[in-house]
């Protein structure tokens, strides 16, 4: 970074789309950032480009236009079927050097968090990680990214004023999904793929997909979380039903893991997972710091606890003081009723 770059040459918003076996995976996340990318592009009065790498992508590429992309850059080749850091980085960096986007968004999934930093280093640009809010500075026309840090204890607003593309990874479950519009048209551009299997330094020997439920807690949009106060009688079974009604994953505190009702994969907190869903419903949880570091940055927190002074209420947006055994069934009934 010796000479000052001519930043005006950089135009357009790019969004990296994840696929697995040719279809959108983390589909909501990729679509969420496509929706957000559309908003940013409109604010800047520029085009939105979706970038997708994999195999057999024709249909998916077309779908991305209906979801709002003006252009889709497709790298379609067997060697790209499974995500590989170096191959994907090479292709995206090459395309970015040639076409000069001003913004590049990547989902903050495991794949995205592996890929984005590598791209940003190579392009010598900044990357703001795990953003929960994106905007355009009206005056400077640059990206304004806001993200949690310190385990969700602080929020930071970060800019990348002098380097391009301005990169951010975006957390799942925080951006709105785009609408499908059959009438949208756009261009699908094929990127040339020269890489061969022999060029790939890293070989994939085995790929196993987990059962959808348990492992996905970090990508879940809604989480119903059980504390010891939700484990007596048939309360835990009712929680499972509540989770089903809400289309949520079940998680819980460490003592609940210790009772064996949940697996360690879904224990939330310091010695478990960190989650940041749209909705976190804490039932019978006291709210110690070891637990709240794992959930404090959820978008909306609901706490149900019989103790009005429970710490968890300090982290909650909505609180119900009451016995979980009575509140949970009532809530299930209300959810059912609201649907009719």
């Amino acid at each position, binding site marked *: *970074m*010796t000479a000052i770059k001519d930043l005006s040459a950089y135009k357009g918003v790019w969004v990296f789309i994840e696929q697995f076996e040719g279809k959108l995976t983390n589909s909501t996340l990729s679509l969420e950032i496509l929706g957000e990318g559309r908003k940013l592009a409109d604010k800047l009065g520029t085009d939105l480009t979706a970038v997708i790498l994999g195999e057999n992508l024709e249909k998916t590429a077309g779908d991305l236009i209906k979801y709002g992309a003006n252009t889709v850059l497709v790298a379609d080749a067997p060697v790209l079927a499974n*995500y590989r*850091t*170096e191959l994907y980085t090479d292709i995206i960096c090459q395309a970015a050097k040639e076409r000069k986007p001003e913004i590049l968004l990547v989902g903050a*999934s*495991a794949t995205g*968090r*592996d*890929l*984005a*930093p*590598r791209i*940003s*280093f190579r392009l*010598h640009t*900044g990357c703001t*990680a*795990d953003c929960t809010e994106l905007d355009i500075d009206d005056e400077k026309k640059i990206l*304004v990214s806001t993200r949690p*840090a*310190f*385990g*969700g*204890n*602080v*929020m*930071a*607003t*970060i*800019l990348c*004023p002098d380097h391009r593309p301005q990169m951010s990874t975006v957390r799942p479950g925080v951006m709105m999904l785009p609408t499908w519009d059959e009438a949208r048209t756009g261009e699908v551009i094929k990127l040339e793929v020269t890489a061969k299997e022999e060029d790939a*330094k*890293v*070989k*994939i*020997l*085995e790929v*196993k997909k*987990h059962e959808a439920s348990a492992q996905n807690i*970090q*990508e879940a949009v809604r989480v119903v979380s059980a504390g010891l106060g939700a484990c007596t009688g048939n309360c835990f079974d009712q929680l499972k039903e509540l989770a089903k009604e809400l289309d949520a994953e079940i998680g819980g505190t460490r003592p609940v893991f210790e009772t064996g009702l949940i697996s360690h994969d879904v224990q939330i907190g310091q010695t478990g997972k960190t989650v940041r869903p749209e*909705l976190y419903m804490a039932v019978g949880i006291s709210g110690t710091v070891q637990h709240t*570091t794992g959930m404090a940055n959820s978008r*909306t927190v*609901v*706490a149900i606890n019989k103790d009005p002074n429970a710490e968890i*209420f300090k*982290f909650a*947006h*909505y*609180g*119900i*003081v009451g*016995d979980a055994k*009575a*509140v949970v069934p009532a*809530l299930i009934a*209300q*959810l059912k009723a609201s649907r009719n």
Partner: protein
Amino acid sequence: MKIIVCIKQVPDVTEVKWDENGSLIRTGLPSIINPNDKNAIEAALTLKEEKGAEITVVSMGPPQVEEALREAMAMGCDHAVLLTDRKFGGADCWATAYTLGMAIKKLGHFDLIFSGVEAMDGNTAQVGPEIADFLGLPLLSYAEAIEVGEGTVKIHQKLGDLTRVIEGPMPALITCEKELNVPRIPRMDLVFECFEKEIKVLGMADVDGELENFGLKGSPTRLRKVFSPKRAKAQVEFLEGTPKESSQKLVEKLHEINAI
């Protein structure tokens, strides 16, 4: 085999306290080795015991990071390098990776670099992958198991809802997950011994590199502001009434804000 382990000293954010306005009190937090980095150290020590290895821990930070490096040596690491210079201050991930990468180049031949997946304070998980790119190394991220073969290394990678077994040639960079192992406690005899050991201290002049790539100056990102997240305290809205009434109110609220 030579292994380099990157470690970061972090404030123990699980000890965080808030003042009465709900703002984070940041002073007085104890400093610890970033938890994932302890898994990285443990992974290196395991390889040392199984196959023989020489382990160098590297950390960039203010002079007190020496404590973290001594703790790593008390766990069994052989050498320690402290990267400290006022001009390193204010580094973002890009500049951090640049500095660590330049220093690692100076250290000469190595077979593996280990880092944590993510530091507990910055929480970006970007430094490991960025160092790999700088040094042109294969990146094996999110390791839950590591197996070293003849010139190659294999890991079990936790990639979201996939678990993959991937293999690359050495030298390579591996980012370590907490599921990888249980870090050992420093050994008493080594704790005393490690105070005698030398820590190599490198500043900007020692690692070469271009002046404008270090520290705040070399950081493409700029922090505009830091603030406390909306922490509910006075904000929690209690929904009163019988279970039926309160749940009805809750369902209405959740519909209003599009949470369901």
